[in-house]
């Protein structure tokens, strides 16, 4: 990564005016002014061209502070950063889907543990012919089977 030590503000009318700026890490940085007529009004448009959204934002915030602008709209097109961001968003969607699935699996597992341990207990009671207790054990299983989890 190279460092930009000075930037040039180009003004078509007055020629080139060199302006000293702080040391900023950037690969490419171009700043240009243009006069635009829009909606029946003419105004100045500032264009900052660089690959890093961070750098552009920092520069813009400094300018806003320096020129004491308290309201500024902008159009921001950073194809590289947006492409990366799209991948991040895809990752979020994938993770979220996986999270839902895993939560459902977990609920299934815990339900299975409950049912299987109860069933084993009942089987054991059957094996030892202690029928008195079986009736009261079957009831909770029946309620588990028809529970909201199934």
């Amino acid at each position, binding site marked *: 990564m190279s460092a930009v030590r000075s930037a040039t503000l180009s003004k078509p009318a007055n020629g080139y005016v060199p302006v000293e700026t702080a040391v900023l890490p950037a690969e490419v940085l171009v700043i240009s002014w243009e006069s635009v007529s829009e909606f029946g009004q003419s105004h100045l448009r500032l264009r900052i061209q660089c690959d890093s959204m961070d750098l552009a934002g920092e520069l813009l*915030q400094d300018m806003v502070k320096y020129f004491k602008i308290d*309201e500024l709209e902008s*159009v921001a097109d950073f194809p590289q950063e947006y492409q990366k961001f799209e991948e991040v968003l895809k990752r979020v969607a994938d993770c979220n889907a996986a999270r839902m699935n895993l939560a459902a699996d977990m609920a299934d597992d815990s339900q299975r543990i409950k049912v299987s341990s109860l069933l084993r207990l009942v089987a054991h009671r059957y094996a030892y012919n202690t029928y008195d207790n079986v009736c009261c054990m079957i009831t909770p299983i029946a309620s588990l089977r028809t529970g909201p989890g199934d």
Partner: protein
Amino acid sequence: MMGDMEMMRKAYTELNGLNGQLMAGYNIRAQNQETLLNALKEVNQMIQKAANLRAGRAKARVIADCRTAVKSNSMKTLFKIMKYGYEANTNSATR
């Protein structure tokens, strides 16, 4: 149950297996959760970066609109807000 050693051993082996399964499941969940959290952090950073390209009310509006877009899962709107500062159809911008 205490009288039947064989069955108890079987039950414990099964329980151990199940416990292992659950732990593996938990590890996968934890890893997934961490990935998700990091990705969401990146999303938030990106929103902040996009907001940093505006000033004043526009900045606050971009943050709020982006959050709404993320919540309603409309990525097209999110990109539009980041690029132009507002949704084209609602046009809440003050020119």
